[in-house]
């Protein structure tokens, strides 16, 4: 606190200072710079939204609501239905979240509550290294190493589960492929672990020591302390972290494009080939022959844009609300 007062002459100078009339110049400059930077982001976002929706109107108006939300994507007959891609994006992100969240929370709790601080640092470094690997590298690793290995694993699982009611609808099926919804979900999970981990770690670190010590004083074990003191406090923030990870998983392009199998199908079989919104844009934009095809791909971008904005805004909302509650507590 003492350093803050020293470093901030604007506070100590007060209104009585003879220099008071000079300050506004710098302040005004800074205010303008900050406001301009903030506005710039908004303007860029707005411009992206306007120009993409403009170019997507061809698709929206030709296909209509029923055409846009149909399951048939067949460029040879000019049918552009977005549902297979919406479904693929939702399913792969869901798989990613289901796998990544427990792992990330485990790591976050390990770092904050279990290992001594001097060991935590190298672990954090390692986790952050995961985030540094470019997505195309994940994709290539997926297609070259993971897909051939998983092909046999999936085939074994699928044949083992034949006839079992619920499990075979998800993990069975005739056309089992190494490149599938599940493989894409797996790669996405690894990719979002760093962001979910580091955000949850920060949230969990804000839990007041006094709460934790109180729990211990009442005779709680470490697990009971985490459940009773840490979890209620960090719940909201963790949900926000998960939603931010979800946003990232939904938008991931190249890694998913390489391992998802590139087939616009809606099926409950997770080991079957599928498609997602960003990967179809990346795959098909290059040779998209004009008119509605191109417009439809841009339209998919608009839908994805809207979807991620909603997810991100709600994540921010939840994080802020929980931060406010944490401060009040």
């Amino acid at each position, binding site marked *: 606190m003492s350093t803050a007062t020293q470093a901030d002459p604007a506070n100590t100078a007060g209104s009585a200072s003879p220099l008071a009339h000079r300050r506004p110049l710098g302040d005004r400059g800074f205010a303008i710079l900050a406001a301009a930077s903030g506005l710039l982001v908004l303007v860029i976002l707005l411009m992206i939204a306007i120009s993409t929706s403009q170019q997507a109107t061809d698709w929206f108006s030709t296909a209509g609501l029923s055409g846009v939300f149909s399951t048939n994507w067949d460029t040879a007959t000019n049918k552009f239905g977005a549902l297979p891609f919406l479904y693929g994006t939702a399913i792969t992100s869901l798989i990613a979240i289901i796998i990544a969240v427990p792992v990330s929370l485990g790591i976050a709790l390990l770092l904050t509550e279990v290992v001594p601080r001097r060991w935590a640092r190298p672990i954090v470094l390692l986790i952050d290294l995961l985030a540094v690997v470019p997505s195309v590298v994940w994709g290539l690793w997926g297609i070259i190493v993971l897909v051939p290995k998983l092909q046999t694993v999936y085939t074994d699982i699928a044949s083992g589960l034949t006839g079992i009611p619920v499990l075979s609808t998800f993990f069975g099926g005739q056309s089992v492929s190494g490149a599938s919804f599940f493989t894409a979900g797996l790669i996405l999970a690894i990719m979002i672990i760093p962001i979910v981990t580091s955000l949850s770690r920060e949230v969990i670190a804000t839990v007041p020591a006094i709460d934790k010590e109180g729990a211990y004083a009442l005779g709680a074990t470490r697990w009971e302390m985490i459940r009773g003191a840490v979890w209620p406090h960090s719940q909201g923030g963790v949900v926000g972290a998960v939603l931010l990870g979800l946003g990232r998983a939904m938008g991931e392009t190249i890694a998913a494009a390489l391992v998802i199998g590139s087939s616009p199908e809606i099926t409950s079989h997770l080991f079957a080939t599928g498609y997602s919104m960003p990967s179809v844009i990346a795959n098909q934009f*290059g040779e998209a022959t004009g008119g509605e095809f191109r417009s439809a791909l841009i339209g998919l971008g608009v839908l994805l844009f809207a979807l991620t904005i909603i997810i991100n805004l709600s994540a921010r909302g939840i994080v802020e609300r929980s931060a406010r509650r944490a401060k009040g507590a």
Partner: protein
Amino acid sequence: MQLRGIKRATIMGGGVALAVAVAACSSSSSPAAGGSSSPSSGSGSSSLSGTLNASGSTFQTNFQQAAISAFKSLYPNVTVNYGGGGSGKGRSDLASGTVNFAGSDSPIPSSETSSFAGKTVLYFPVQIGPIAIAYNLSGVSSLKLDSATLAGIFSGKITKWNDSAIKALNSGVSLPSEAISPVVRSDSSGTTANFSNFLVQSAGSAWTLGTSSTIKWPSSFKAANGGSGVAQAVKSTAGAIGYVDFSTATASSLTAASIKNKDGDFVAPSTAGANAAASQVTPKADLTFSTVWQAGATSYPITYQSWDLVYAKQPNANDAKLLQAYLGYLLGDGQQLLSQINLAALPSSIDSLAKAQLSKITS
């Protein structure tokens, strides 16, 4: 406090200076004056200088790269950049004016003509190439297929290698009962468009999936990215069959099937077969044509072509001269580079028509 204000101003000023410098850099793509290097050949080549930017067809990328480096030794002051990205991207880049010419494997489709309204686009055919039907079947070194069986295989109706339709074409070859796993392109591609166009024209009602740069394949098919991805997948999957451009198939040393052509002869993919198919073609007035499914005993039936698209009216005289020089090179000496990369040169009839069209590029 005063000091802090000055610091802040300097930082902001530095930012402005940097922005100006960046802007200056990006706008200085205009030719540098006074090039003193001496060209090895060509009349007046030292007087030409400047930059040509292009994007489009990835089918052309290998040829363009070979031609650009050879052209550079003739015209040291001219820089040509070919960005690839796909025919669709090339055409939209040309429409938006970001490139000087665009590579495209197909003429401008009717759905795109509105973006070129009021402007004359010239088509310069530059290369011909066969699409190989590569397969991976141990013990089978030669395989004959016709359009109907190909249509059956690529629509998922023929699923075993010892299917009666394949057997009928290959008497004396022992075909295993292995499952056929077709490999297709996951990205949109001119190769897909021309392969499916071949099936539409040759197989009739046996082919129902239509023609486009992406096809709605049966979901059991394996999809791979790029021609090299398909080649890799065919190579590593037993029982696989895939369509891949001949130069990539040769580079990956894949085995390719002989395909029955319009005259009823089985022809293996080769640059000579592609050239034979192209020489059957009578181009339209705008030099558009299709080399798929042509007559002729030695014509390879799955042959396709690529054009460079240029506006007839260029914004300045220098751009027009540069384009004439570079496209003139592609149609002239550049044609000899094609055989080295397993692509076919234009037949002389089409080549001379294209050369005659060079004078239509004006400023």
